[in-house]
């Protein structure tokens, strides 16, 4: 390593054209947001959203066809700190300023629900879409449990949740805000108190219902200057009523039924709880090849009657190459339960294809439901610049419905597992049988017999005589 060499010989680059042309570099913008939603059970949900937008034209080598969807899933993998660290590296002010200060791995993974996502997509810059910019959105959702994290107390603060408070905004962010959902508690200050009191509130139709949020803007100097840090506190004045949470209009469940290790049935239940509107749902199922689906047994019933899907696409599996792909558009009638069931047979794998713990089972990836759910309240069309980020992840053009994508649970299925100790058992048994049988036969066949004089002594005879004398029987 050394210092740089003298440049006497190499100063030649001033042959470039003129002075630097001061073209305005393309504008990149970063917006960050945190939404805190207190739940009626005493838990609290927090969702981070970071959006980076580049206005420069990223080169695309050859136009890929946008109509091809590639879908890949690893159902056995669990998200952990190894995934959080590179996710945080994508943020410009990672862990040093702004909202990303709160992203500490030891608190975020001590929760009852954790979800991370990265979305990259092109967005149009104007209504006619003559130029596009690229948007990178990172979202992270956690649900803090009142008993595990809160130790039974239902009062929450940023410090309690993340073990940090907000100190300064990220200098690179154009917007940095914290929203607290106070929908049910805004009228009376007697159930939930939010400290420090919000200066502004924001009201909008989110996911079909009207919601109110308290807004704290980190870029507003008055917010932080007073106390040098922002530690939002949520205090319950009255204990929260244990009312059941509102059931969403679309939810789903999935399970495997049947007995034994040969056959089974895969069922998905789709619930439409809307009182009077029916809407279609797109169901995408990707089942691994070792569950051989019998597509002729596919039945869809709603309210006891058969329901024929308006569109079915099925791609059969190829052993060890490709899983089953089943995609259907199902119309869910209002206020009903729809059951989609299909029977399958479990395949026997080659013995090198089993995992080291085959009796744990094999995972089946969750099915994906996408739907435009009709909303209770009509919403205004979304304005990209003004609306908060949580409203613009899946924008819709008309406000009468909102887009929802649901994932059901992943399933654990047992496949017929061979007994891996059998080769060893076979070797032992065969060798023993051969040794004993063959050995005895051989000995019998090749033994030569000698006549032997009876021996007078011998330890065994003396021992036997001792016992006979004790018994009072004449000796041998």
């Amino acid at each position, binding site marked *: *390593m050394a210092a740089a060499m003298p440049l006497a010989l*190499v100063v030649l*680059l001033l042959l470039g054209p003129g002075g*630097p042309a001061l073209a305005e570099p393309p504008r990149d913008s970063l917006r960050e947001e945190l939404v805190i939603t207190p739940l009626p059970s005493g838990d609290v949900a927090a969702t981070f959203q970071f959006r980076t937008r580049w206005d420069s034209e990223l080169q695309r080598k050859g136009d890929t066809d946008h109509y091809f969807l590639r879908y890949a899933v690893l159902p056995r993998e669990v998200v952990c700190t190894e995934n959080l660290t590179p996710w945080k590296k994508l943020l410009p002010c990672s862990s040093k300023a702004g909202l990303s200060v709160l992203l500490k791995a030891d608190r975020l993974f001590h929760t009852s629900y954790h979800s991370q996502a990265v979305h990259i997509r092109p967005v149009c810059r104007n209504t006619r879409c003559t130029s596009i910019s690229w948007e990178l959105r990172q979202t992270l959702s956690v649900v803090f449990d009142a008993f595990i994290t809160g130790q039974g107390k239902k009062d929450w603060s940023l410090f309690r949740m993340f073990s940090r408070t907000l100190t300064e905004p990220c200098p690179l962010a154009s917007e940095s805000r914290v929203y607290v959902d106070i929908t049910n508690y805004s009228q009376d200050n007697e159930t939930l108190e939010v400290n420090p009191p919000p200066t502004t509130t924001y009201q909008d139709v989110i996911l079909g219902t009207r919601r109110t949020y308290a807004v704290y803007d980190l870029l507003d100097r008055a917010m932080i200057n007073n106390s040098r840090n922002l530690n939002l506190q949520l205090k319950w004045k009255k204990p929260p009523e244990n009312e059941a949470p509102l059931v969403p209009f679309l939810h789903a469940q999935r399970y495997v039924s049947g007995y034994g290790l040969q056959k089974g049935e895969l069922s998905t239940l789709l619930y439409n709880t809307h009182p009077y509107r029916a809407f279609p749902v797109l169901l995408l199922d990707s089942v691994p090849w070792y569950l051989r689906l019998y597509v002729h047994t596919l039945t869809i019933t709603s309210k006891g009657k058969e329901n024929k899907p308006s569109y079915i696409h099925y791609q059969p599996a190829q052993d060890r190459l490709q899983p089953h792909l089943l995609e259907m558009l199902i119309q869910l009638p209002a206020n009903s339960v729809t059951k989609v069931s299909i029977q399958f047979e479990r395949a026997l794998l080659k013995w090198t294809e089993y995992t080291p713990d085959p009796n744990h089972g094999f995972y089946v990836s969750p099915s994906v439901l996408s739907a435009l759910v009709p909303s209770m309240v009509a919403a205004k069309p979304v304005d990209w610049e003004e609306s908060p980020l949580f409203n613009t992840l899946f924008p819709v053009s008309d406000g009468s419905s909102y887009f929802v994508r649901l994932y059901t649970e992943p399933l654990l299925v047992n496949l017929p597992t061979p007994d891996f100790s059998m080769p060893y058992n076979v070797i032992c048994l*065969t060798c023993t049988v051969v*040794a004993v049988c063959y050995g005895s036969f*051989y000995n019998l066949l090749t033994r030569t017999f000698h006549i032997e004089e009876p021996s007078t002594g011998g330890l065994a005879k003396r021992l036997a005589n001792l016992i006979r004398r004790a018994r009072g029987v004449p000796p041998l």
Partner: protein
Amino acid sequence: MVPVTVVFTRESVPLDDQEKLPFTVVHEREIPLKYKMKIKCRFQKAYRRALDHEEEALSSGIVQGTGREAEAMLAEPQEQAEGSLTVYVISEHSSLLPQDMMSYIGPKRTAVVRGIMHREAFNIIGRRIVQIAQAMSLTEDVLAAALADHLPEDKWSSDKRRPLKSSLGYEITFSLLNPDPRSHDVHWDIEGAVRRYVQPFLNALSVAGNFSVDSQILYYAMLGVNPRFDPASSSYYLDMHSLPHVINPVESRLGSSAASLYPVLNFLLYVPELAHSPLYIQDKDGAPVATNAFHSPRWGGIMIYNVDSKAYNGSELPVRVEVDMVRVMEVFLAQLRLLFGIAQPHVPPKCLLSGPKSEGLMTWELDRLLWARSVENLATATTTLTSLAQLLGKISNIVIKDDVASEVYRAVAAVQKAAEELASGHLASAFVASQEAVTSSERAFFDPSLLHLLYFPDDQKFAIYIPLFLPMAVPILLSLVKIFLETRKSWKKPEKVD
């Protein structure tokens, strides 16, 4: 072998010597390296008389002549092959060169030497030409640096700054580190700078490999070392001994090893934070380094860009900083040349070295690089193939598939071809052949199918067969022994009787 064409003008040598033209002289030299390894270096000089247009061009040189204009007029119609040199011998009193300079080396594989009117003209001129040719093509240190990886450590490699390993391509990353975005709002026109300065240089080097360039801006990236305050100049400084510790903490954020097939060169531009401004690098004498930059062999370079203190007057934070890309790119290109091993050649005395072309690379410097790379590639390919052979000798369990075998054959053929081409002086095809040799040998050596049956140890086979055969074999062996004993007894008995 380096082919050199020597062109004599009319008054450069005595007439009777001129009658002997054209002819060829070969000058061979053996460079001993280490452990009985030697490299033979041959300079083949083809002497000829100058053609008419060359005479014109050389005689019409301008008086204070740097020779460049003459050279432009000498533009040969045919492109000179890579690796070859052309030396023009002019008359002793020509005014093409300044008075005290004996020779001149131009940017495009040409050189000009003063002739001499003497009986031993050819010998003297021949020696001068060999000196110049060595400066322009191959010397010991170039070869030693190229083979540094394959020779054991000794005086050659330890203090030579190692150039980059030969590879099919390189990825160059320019990063702007801004540890204090609250005080500095830094902008740099990296796209334009790369297009104007870096891309021509890389285009000139494109024979040596594929290059790709990218850039990024990192915020809150600190150097790992705390700079010390120097009250004399009221500035902060980084000691030369603390420089090795600077790179490590930054390296993890650069994301360089993430997704690239080729080795990565990182060039960082660091704008120190307000609390540590201005920041200088001190060399071992304690004086601040002129360019405020340093580089690390085989990794890249770092330059510290101090914000002008006048920019702080009167404006509130953050201060907008517009980086002067010319200054920065000068340093980075110089570091790039050093990293590639394009160092100062060892010029003979009284020789004038011309300034480089606008791309920053003289053509014969590229030739030197290609010579060194070809030799290095050949050494790597041979080492890989030898290790594969030794491995097969030790572990007999490995299965060699047909395509692996064909890769090995291809590698051997390429090595032989490269050696032939190097000996006959065709540099371009030799370089291509050597690259192909390296690729094939690596593909054969690192093939995953070689490991397939590696873990089938012999004792497992024993463990399976012994429990089966041993119990069967024991009675057989015992009866064989018995038969043998009885036969021996029956032999003894007839003897006894008889």
